[in-house]
């Protein structure tokens, strides 16, 4: 069909350049009236449609963090080991030996719900670009996934598609996916969460930043061509003028991991020369956010000729080119004179390379298309005048403390364990993990639940006496705790992450966070945001694990129903000698010891626990309290014991409590254990709520360690005044015995643990 633009008799881009926007256009693009008035005032003119599109992208929640900025500013972001905090493509920390770890987590929630394969694949692709833009070679991928109820009809389809998409991108580009978490709750039925995290490695003195430098320097576009995919609001803008019929393309971007791999290799090859002055990935809001951010961070300006942008489709307008979110593209400022050398590298990798403009000192973004000035905007208002809202909030806190005696049940301890491991939130995710290539690059030490944190060896740090350094990575969040008490929930996510890093033998260092919430215009949702950030801040600063990067995803709701508040913490740690890292599996004749104690020593905290949900069919009450002193003490003593090579395994106690953790430690080698009970519980029967709460309570600040040297360990624990409880010594019986009260077959439970997810997915061989 003849594009309608031809019928207009004037050039589409001439029309776009001259046509002034109206308030309705702004409202269609998601701006408010106040924001539109502010824009007109700050730029001292009525913007045209392209200019307004650029403003709407820069003022979007995604780019401007307008609802959360006020609170994000309160996060602790500094420490001696922080090289780059929030504000760049990814956070950077010093890990010694002139090396830096570069990492970030980002959400791709909405696209993954609409199109699970492409949505999650591009989520992985995007986060990888964020990392290698900084000059780092990505060495590991993680993901935090939340799906709806297992029996909800869409869940199976979404799990299957998202897992395939994550694997599809990571496997192809050749970065190992080493772990993460997958959970299910009905609140995600209509709005799943797909958070992808990437960690890269760079030389400390070879980090690349995005701030443009030097007026007159060339601006280079590299990577894939620009198409019409991912243009938010393209339809409404088109309706105003030309091709209203032409394009109703899905707004989900399409990923090409093969091009991603070529772009990764080409960029790293070019970064090995001295040609690159600054570089920025074209992620959300594509060419708009990359050009605006590069120019404004350098306090400079930029002139771009959009006719020179490599395009995939005919007759793309200035608006479409600026707002496209086509994948696998980068914008770079090169040292003048190095263009030829750079082009050769991109030619070798069969990627587009185009000089599309130059850096200026005007402080303005000036774009031309078809000889018409498509945009002429001052950069300052685009970045600095983005609104910052102080939305009303109310932090709702459930203070009801549930007592074990309030939960009456006719379930035995064995019945409950079976139910726990039949719960897809606890059960082994092996079915999922096997679809990810976790061993490519040859450096993966522990992946996918082998250890509480995934461990990747740092290539090139091998020494005569050691295999070298390792990076430990985990993602954590317990949304039901956050819902019940946002402050405690935020603290708990940080503490559990730190405990997981420590349980792998590594020192917790820094955080990237992915804040997934509902609609911030609702007081209680805003309260969840404010409360959990408060908790995260407090715990992160206490544990000296600053937040160095992150992402905010709001409006996660369907038909007015919000998701559970899910502030995911991605934490990175380091271990000097990777052979000292710890798996969760105990070995034969190890003594298991719980470090830390439950809140009153003899029973367990059941509010908001998996156990309580099994008995009551819902979560209720206050979540387990957090004592930061205790958390720190447990982490420090564990690292101290491990430094002295006294430990053989470690596992933090979280969902499902103590007995669940013990089972998980016994699975791999089919071990047994006669477990010691506190004196007050010896005479209980299997139905006793006090005993059950001891088994399944979710008190925090506890880690189970395994040792061959109980005497030495006990001595050190006493010297350091650490609470502990000796559980007993592993044997080859494959039975977990609670005195005469219960005998649990480890093989039976393990079987259930491994069958739950395959059976949910209809894959029972």
């Amino acid at each position: 069909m003849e594009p309608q633009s031809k019928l207009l008799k004037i050039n589409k881009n001439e029309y776009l350049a001259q046509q002034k926007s109206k308030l309705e256009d702004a409202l269609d693009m998601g701006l408010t009236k106040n924001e539109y008035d502010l824009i007109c005032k700050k730029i001292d003119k009525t913007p045209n449609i392209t200019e307004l599109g650029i403003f709407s992208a820069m003022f979007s929640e995604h780019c401007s963090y307008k609802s959360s900025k006020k609170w994000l500013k309160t996060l602790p972001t500094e420490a001696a080991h922080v090289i780059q905090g929030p504000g760049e493509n990814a956070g950077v920390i010093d890990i010694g030996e002139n090396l830096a770890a570069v990492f970030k987590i980002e959400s791709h929630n909405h696209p993954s719900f609409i199109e699970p394969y492409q949505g999650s694949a591009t989520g992985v692709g995007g986060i990888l670009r964020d990392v290698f833009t900084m000059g780092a070679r990505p060495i590991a991928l993680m993901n935090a996934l939340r799906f709806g109820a297992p029996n909800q009809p869409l869940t199976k389809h979404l799990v299957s598609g998202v897992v395939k998409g994550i694997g599809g991108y990571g496997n192809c580009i050749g970065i190992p996916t080493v772990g993460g978490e997958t959970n299910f709750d009905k609140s995600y039925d209509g709005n799943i969460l797909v958070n992808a995290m990437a960690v890269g490695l760079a030389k400390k003195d070879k980090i690349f930043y995005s701030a443009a430098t030097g007026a007159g320097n060339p601006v280079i576009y590299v990577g894939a061509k620009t198409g019409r995919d991912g243009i938010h609001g393209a339809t409404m803008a088109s309706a105003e003028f030309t091709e209203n019929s032409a394009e109703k393309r899905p707004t989900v971007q399409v990923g090409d991991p093969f091009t991603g791999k070529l772009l990764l290799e080409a960029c790293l090859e070019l970064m090995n020369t001295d040609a690159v002055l600054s570089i920025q990935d074209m992620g959300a809001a594509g060419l708009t956010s990359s050009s605006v951010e590069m120019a404004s961070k350098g306090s400079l300006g930029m002139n771009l000729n959009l006719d020179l942008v490599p395009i995939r489709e005919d007759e793309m307008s200035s608006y479409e080119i600026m707002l496209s979110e086509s994948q696998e593209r980068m914008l770079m400022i090169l040292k003048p004179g190095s263009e030829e050398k750079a082009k050769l590298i991109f030619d070798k990798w069969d990627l587009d390379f185009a000089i599309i403009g130059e850096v200026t000192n005007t402080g303005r973004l000036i774009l031309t298309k078809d000889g018409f000035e498509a945009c002429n905007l001052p950069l300052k208002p685009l970045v600095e005048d983005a609104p910052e809202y102080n939305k009303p909030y109310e932090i709702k806190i459930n203070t009801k403390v549930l007592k074990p005696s309030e939960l009456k049940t006719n379930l035995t301890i064995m019945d409950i364990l079976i139910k726990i491991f039949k719960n897809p939130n606890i059960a082994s995710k092996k079915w999922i993990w096997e679809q990810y290539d976790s061993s490519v690059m040859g450096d993966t030490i522990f992946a996918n639940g082998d250890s509480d944190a995934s461990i990747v060896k740092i290539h090139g740090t091998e020494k005569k006496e050691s295999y070298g350094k390792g990076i430990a990575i985990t993602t954590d969040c317990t949304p039901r705790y956050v819902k019940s008490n946002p402050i405690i929930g935020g603290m708990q996510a940080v503490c559990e992450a730190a405990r997981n890093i420590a349980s792998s033998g590594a020192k917790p260092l820094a955080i990237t966070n992915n804040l997934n919430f509902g609609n911030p215009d609702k007081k209680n949702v805003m309260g969840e945001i404010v409360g959990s950030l408060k908790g995260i801040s407090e715990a992160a600063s206490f544990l000296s694990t600053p937040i160095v990067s992150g992402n905010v995803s709001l409006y996660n709701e369907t038909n007015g129903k919000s998701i559970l508040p899910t502030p995911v913490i991605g934490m990175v740690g380091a271990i000097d000698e990777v052979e000292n890292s710890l798996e969760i599996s105990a070995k034969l004749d190890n003594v298991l010891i719980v470090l830390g104690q439950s809140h009153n020593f003899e029973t367990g905290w059941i509010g908001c626990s998996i156990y309580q949900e099994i008995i009551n069919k819902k979560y209720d009450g206050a979540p387990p309290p957090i004592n930061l002193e205790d958390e720190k003490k447990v982490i420090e003593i564990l690292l101290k014991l491990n430094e002295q090579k006294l430990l053989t395994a470690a596992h933090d106690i979280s969902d499902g409590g103590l007995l669940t953790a013990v089972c998980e430690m016994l699975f791999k080698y089919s071990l047994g254990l006669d477990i010691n009970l506190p004196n007050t519980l010896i005479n209980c029967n299997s139905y006793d709520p006090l005993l059950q709460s001891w088994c399944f309570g979710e008190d925090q600040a506890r880690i189970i360690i395994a040792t061959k040297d109980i005497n030495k360990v006990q001595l050190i624990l006493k010297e350091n005044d650490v609470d502990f409880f000796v559980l007993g010594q592993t044997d080859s019986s494959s039975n977990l015995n609670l005195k005469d009260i219960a005998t649990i077959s480890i093989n039976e439970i393990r079987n259930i643990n491994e069958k739950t997810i395959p059976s949910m997915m209809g894959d029972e061989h």
Partner: protein
Amino acid sequence: MRSGVVIFPGSNCDRDMIVALRQITGKTPIKIWHKENDFPNLDLIVVPGGFTFGDYLRCGALAARSPVISSIKNHISRGGTVLGVCNGFQILIEAKILPGSLIRNKKLLFTCRETTLEVQNCIKNPFLSGFKIGEYLKIPVAHNEGNYFAPKELLKQLKEEGRIALKYSKQNNSEKNYNPNGSSDDIAGILSTNGRVLGMMPHPERAINYLHGGTDGLKLLTNCVEQIIG
């Protein structure tokens, strides 16, 4: 010992193979870009794993048309040794250097896990001649299209000619899914008629360290290097 690792756009196990060969030989293998067909005589050429050309069209199909393939064929006709791993195996098949085909895994899912391989009674070859028949090797796989398929006559021929090098094995346990992809006769790797070319799905270069993946891959590669050096 002069070795080379071929790199195509989308290869992603090239570095791992280079690390493994360097660890064994003490020398860094040369990197051979897929457009090259002029490189020095080598004792061993490895076609590593990855997703060459994004696996578009068919795994290995586009790579099998790269200029480097004719040089590899020349190397083979001179009696040279070639190892193809995973996507490298797929490329050797698409280039008709090895027979049969590699189709989607039976479950239609990518699978990454350790497998137990059993050394078969096979013709003299530099890859396995230091091993005992029936010896088990633990080496991981990671692939989507590793299901070796061949017509009955070809399977019979391969068997008779002793060209089945490695099979997936359940060893002593009763693991139902010991074969990760549903391949015919549990085949994990096959040899050329002269025994100098081995294509295998499992990744020996990912099993070279006791901390991860074990060291059976190192054993296989070391054996290969030692046999070539003589």
